């Protein structure tokens, strides 16, 4: 030891006073020591805090990945400018190479492409347009809006027409389509947009072929109503493609049959118009005849392609979406939530650190108090994370408050919070299984909506959270089906098998899938 130090006191301190050297503040040192000791104790008492810190780091990494991906997608935006120039592997790789040589890492996007292999074609083009439109947005709500048609209305003179505007990722971004068919009263515009095509008019007079007889209410749904000011009544037109134009002899002059089934206009390669991929799937009409393009079918096909793109985006982020839900479920099981829960956990926190610990037995618990306090804190964290990840949760304070109210949280009863969380988990798992089922079906993208409509109907959502049920809950559920031969039980069993095959729930037998 140096001779300058006597009895633990630095003898040079008085000499340094006033020489511009800052003296150590003993109170500050004590405070720092206390903070360090507190942090160490905290880690010993609550080892899961370390996990929380790790999760925050992982969250930061995820944010960085999302920002990098958004930068790549923004760099790919020029690819979407010309809708007549399809996106191919060649054009996509050229633009990615541009970004790579500019120092922007593109491997996440390349991995995404490798996970959903496709050849060049309209489906590849449509899916990548949707991905670029959604991925280039930094706000989750805007990203969703980029691939979802926007509802709105257009003033067409005497009436307001509800419409849908095609999203940025569509092959016809910004195109306005009437909802539910045209309903134009009075002297209409030169062309009446029917959604599936235009009925040509001349000074307000439709020049197509009107259906002579008054159609039945059921048939009206397949027709376009156009007001005829001379007859003071509605004329009905086929709700498909471009309406036929006939001469005085009743013969078609525009190549479309004057009656019966009408084919949509043929799409020439390279011509501006809908790509074959997003053409409507064939749909049987009520009368048995098959129409290839009923009203809105083009939009239906385009929407299906966009929905598939959005579903695959969600599927890519499955693990990061499911993690807070699983965490919330585990924490909620050990936490006292609901009215008074926060106060109770405040008291526990106080009692745990003071001699008043003796009165701990007065508080209801099966777990130790500190474990329950920790579970409460974790549940609060995870459920807040779920609310932030919910629609609008990250957009504004008001959006976040609404999302918290709409999601499970520590302010509602424990049973309700658990039930809602399990329901959300089941829905998310079912969504993932559906997307994987469609990927394995080999169907084209324009069939996604129809496939999913049928698939969803065939599933029992409860099956996707069976691993989270208690044995009593499972027994009660199976009993409620009325026996293993019932359709409800078979449906449930098939859903469980689907979930196991997709890997979203563990196989009860423990066998690897």
């Amino acid at each position, binding site marked *: 030891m140096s001779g300058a130090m006597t009895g633990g006191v630095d003898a040079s301190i008085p000499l340094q006073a006033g020489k511009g050297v800052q003296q150590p503040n003993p109170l500050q040192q004590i405070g720092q020591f206390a903070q360090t000791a507190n942090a160490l104790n905290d880690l010993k008492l609550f080892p899961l805090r370390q996990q929380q810190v790790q999760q925050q780091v992982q969250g930061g990494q995820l944010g960085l990945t999302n920002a990098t991906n958004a930068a790549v997608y923004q760099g790919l935006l020029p690819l979407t400018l010309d809708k007549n120039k399809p996106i191919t*592997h060649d054009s996509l790789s050229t633009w990615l*190479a541009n970004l790579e040589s500019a120092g922007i890492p593109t491997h996440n996007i390349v991995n995404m492409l*490798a996970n959903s292999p*496709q050849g060049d074609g309209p489906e590849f083009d449509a899916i990548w347009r949707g991905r670029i439109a959604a991925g280039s947005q930094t706000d989750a709500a805007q990203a969703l809006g980029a691939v979802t048609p926007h509802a709105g209305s257009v003033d067409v003179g005497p009436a307001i027409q509800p419409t849908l505007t095609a999203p940025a990722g569509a092959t016809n971004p910004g195109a306005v389509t009437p909802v539910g068919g045209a309903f134009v009263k009075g002297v209409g515009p030169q062309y009446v947009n029917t959604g599936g095509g235009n009925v040509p008019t001349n000074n307000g007079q439709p020049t197509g072929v009107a259906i002579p007889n008054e159609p039945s209410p059921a048939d009206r749904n397949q027709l376009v109503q156009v007001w005829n000011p001379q007859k003071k009544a509605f004329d009905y037109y086929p709700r498909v493609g471009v309406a036929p134009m006939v001469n005085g002899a009743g013969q078609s002059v525009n190549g479309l049959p004057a009656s019966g089934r009408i084919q949509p206009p043929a799409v020439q390669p390279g011509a501006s118009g809908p790509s074959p991929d997003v053409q409507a799937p064939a749909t049987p009409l009520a009368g048995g005849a098959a129409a290839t393009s009923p009203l809105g079918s083009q939009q239906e096909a385009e929407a299906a392609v966009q929905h598939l793109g959005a579903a695959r985006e969600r599927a890519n982020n499955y693990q990061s979406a499911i993690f807070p839900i699983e965490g919330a479920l585990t924490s909620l099981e050990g936490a006292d939530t609901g009215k008074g829960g926060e106060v109770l956990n405040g008291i526990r926190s106080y009692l745990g650190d003071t001699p008043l610990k003796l009165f701990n037995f007065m508080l209801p618990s099966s777990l130790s108090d500190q474990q329950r306090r920790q579970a409460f804190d974790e549940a609060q964290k995870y459920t807040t994370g779920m609310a932030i990840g919910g629609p609008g949760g990250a957009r504004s304070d008001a959006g976040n408050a609404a999302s918290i109210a709409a999601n499970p949280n520590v302010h509602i009863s424990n049973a309700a919070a658990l039930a809602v969380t399990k329901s959300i988990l089941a829905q998310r798992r079912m969504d993932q299984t559906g997307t994987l089922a469609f990927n*394995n079906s080999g169907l084209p993208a324009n069939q996604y909506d129809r496939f999913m409509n049928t698939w969803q109907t065939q599933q029992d959502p409860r099956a996707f959270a069976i691993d989270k049920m208690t044995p009593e809950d499972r027994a009660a559920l199976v009993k409620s089906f009325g026996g293993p031969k019932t359709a409800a039980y078979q449906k449930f069993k098939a859903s469980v098998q689907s979930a196991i095959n997709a890997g979203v729930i563990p196989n009860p037998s423990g066998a690897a899938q």
Partner: protein
Amino acid sequence: MANNPLASRKPVAPQQHPGMMHARIWQQVQQTPPDDLAQKTAQTGFVTPILGALAGDPNVTRKDVIKAAADAVGSGKVPATQAVAFISQMPTDPTKIQAWLKGLYGANFSALVHLKAAAMRQAPAQPQMNEVQQ
């Protein structure tokens, strides 16, 4: 130790980081002679969409793969030796063909991006505006 059944955790081979594939491909591209870049880019650009179409088909068979390889040779874009090597690597188990094709598709697309990026870096720099003015 590795075969000790009483061991609490069996040793597990460390998983490769997904970014390593891109790193290896980048390294290979860097080692490619500049004169070969254009030819390799053209070949990879031709093959990648074909692999994508095959890998995207859940019912793909050995016959489909062999036919695609034969067509590629017939088009003159791929040498017959490469096609034979490609076919000889194909798994015999039909259930493994799609996964194998998927891996090849990802690797080829990544290679295509890196090959094009390398070609861009090697291209003569365009004269800057201030250089033109001088």
